[in-house]
């Protein structure tokens, strides 16, 4: 087997595994959300489909497929279908550059548990996240419904506003780490030197912006599912609506993975190198730690959702432009000053 073919095979297998894990976690996030929502409200949540309701996501998926697929009259049919596709593809694409673990050694081959080690991984994630806005705005525009369009504009302006502060928080992080490659950022956090210790304000800004980017409460104005119409996906039905909702949960997973990677040491765990375990075990344990961190963040997302009420639109914009943006700029200046004076 030539090295090229083995390289392609390994990458395809790795990509499929990451894809499947992403979709499964996206699926079960829907169940976890409903279960946690119930627990926070002293209820039990779905428990009829399978043991503890574990088959509920499957039942929901089947229901979505059997629903009538409705496309409104005078809707732009091509764009109408393209919208959910873009939302789904973009949310799945970010997983490609996240280092899911260290190196595995199988039959003498050293396999990196990162699909591709881009030297500009941080920029790539940013690019993909910004492209996700297109799914929202295309869906709202193509629906031929003025309320969906208004929601889409509202959603995209929110996402663009918070991307600025998020980017500035990341620049401060890149200044301290000195690299844009995600694998090097993770390697630099070995031994408990997690970036959150050096960039606490930056992490706070990044996390708040991540909440806004994934349209989660308290920033779920694009949807307002509790009291307004559905938002940009008002006219969507069947699995197209399912894709939008599903993409949101995958975004949440990816945002959690990015936060764990950038600020919480990714697959690093302090003290694991002193235990003297075989390298493969260390790698797998590291991946398990990463997923532990990710699940922690997903729980945080849900915890906040069932605690904090939604912002008003002017409050949302004021927080983004008048608070987070200046704060991230100050963070940037302070970081730069510390780096120069050190």
């Amino acid at each position, binding site marked *: 087997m030539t090295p090229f073919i083995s390289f392609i095979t390994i990458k395809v297998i790795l990509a499929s595994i990451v894809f499947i894990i992403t979709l499964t976690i996206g699926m079960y996030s829907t169940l976890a959300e409903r279960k946690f929502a119930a627990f926070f409200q002293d*209820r039990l949540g779905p428990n009829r489909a399978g043991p503890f309701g574990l088959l509920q996501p499957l039942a929901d998926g089947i229901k979505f497929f059997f629903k009538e697929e409705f496309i409104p009259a005078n809707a732009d049919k091509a764009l109408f279908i393209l919208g959910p596709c873009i939302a789904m593809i973009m949310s799945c694409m970010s997983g490609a550059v996240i280092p899911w673990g260290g190196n595995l050694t199988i039959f003498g081959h050293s396999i990196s548990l990162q699909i591709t080690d881009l030297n500009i991984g941080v920029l790539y994630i940013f690019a993909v996240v910004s492209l996700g806005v297109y799914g929202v705005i295309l869906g709202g525009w193509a629906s031929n419904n003025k309320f969906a369009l208004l929601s889409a504009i509202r959603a995209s302006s929110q996402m663009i506003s918070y991307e600025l502060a998020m980017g500035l928080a990341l620049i401060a992080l890149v200044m301290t780490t000195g690299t844009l490659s995600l694998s090097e950022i993770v390697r630099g956090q070995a031994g408990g030197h997690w970036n959150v210790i050096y960039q606490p304000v930056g992490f706070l800004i990044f996390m708040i912006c991540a909440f806004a980017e994934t349209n989660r409460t308290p920033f779920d104005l694009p949807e307002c599912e509790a009291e307004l119409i559905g938002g940009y996906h008002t006219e969507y039905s069947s699995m197209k609506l399912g894709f939008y909702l599903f993409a949101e949960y995958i975004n949440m997973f990816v945002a959690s993975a990015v936060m764990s990677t950038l600020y919480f040491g990714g697959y690093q765990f302090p003290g694991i190198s002193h235990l003297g375990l075989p390298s493969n075990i260390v790698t797998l344990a590291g991946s398990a730690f990463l997923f532990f961190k990710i699940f922690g963040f997903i729980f945080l997302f849900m915890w906040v959702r069932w*605690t*904090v009420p939604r912002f008003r639109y002017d409050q949302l914009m004021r927080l983004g432009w008048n608070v987070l943006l200046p704060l991230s700029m100050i963070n940037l200046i302070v970081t730069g000053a510390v780096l120069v004076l050190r």
Partner: protein
Amino acid sequence: MKPLTSRSKSVSNKTMTMIERLYLPAIIKGMVITLGHFFKKKVTIKYPEQTRPFSPVFRGLHVLRRDAMGAERCTACGLCAVACPAEAITMDAAERKAGEEHLYREEKYAQRYEINMLRCIFCGLCEEACPKEAIFLTDRILPAGTTRDGFIWGKDRLVESPTQRIDISKRHFYYKDGK
């Protein structure tokens, strides 16, 4: 000023302090409260598997009883229909033929006995009016249905089966105890 009730709260228009304006401490406080509820005992009753015990005075679905020999107690006197405030009960009387003594206790019996469950208000005046202790309200719940006709219960569903008697001893009858 003296407050009008003990529950009135004074409202102030003071400006928020720096800590309050940060908003984050308030969020964390709220999250601690919700986390407390996360681990609290759940109040849900898993209905088909678990049921809440009814109060002894609960008035549910009716039953037309049989006596110890298995004969119907109802003599179609019509007192229940007269007592019924919702006019839910209809009946036709018939005379008992020779050889039917094991079916009906007295010479007259109800050939047709219908309760319109959509009209019934489950007040229990029928069982109070009944001189023969034939009709009782039980601790059973009226099942849901999809047609209006399905809610008119005839003798086929009201009369208890001679082999599977309906237990009415769980009911507590205030008027029969003389309380």
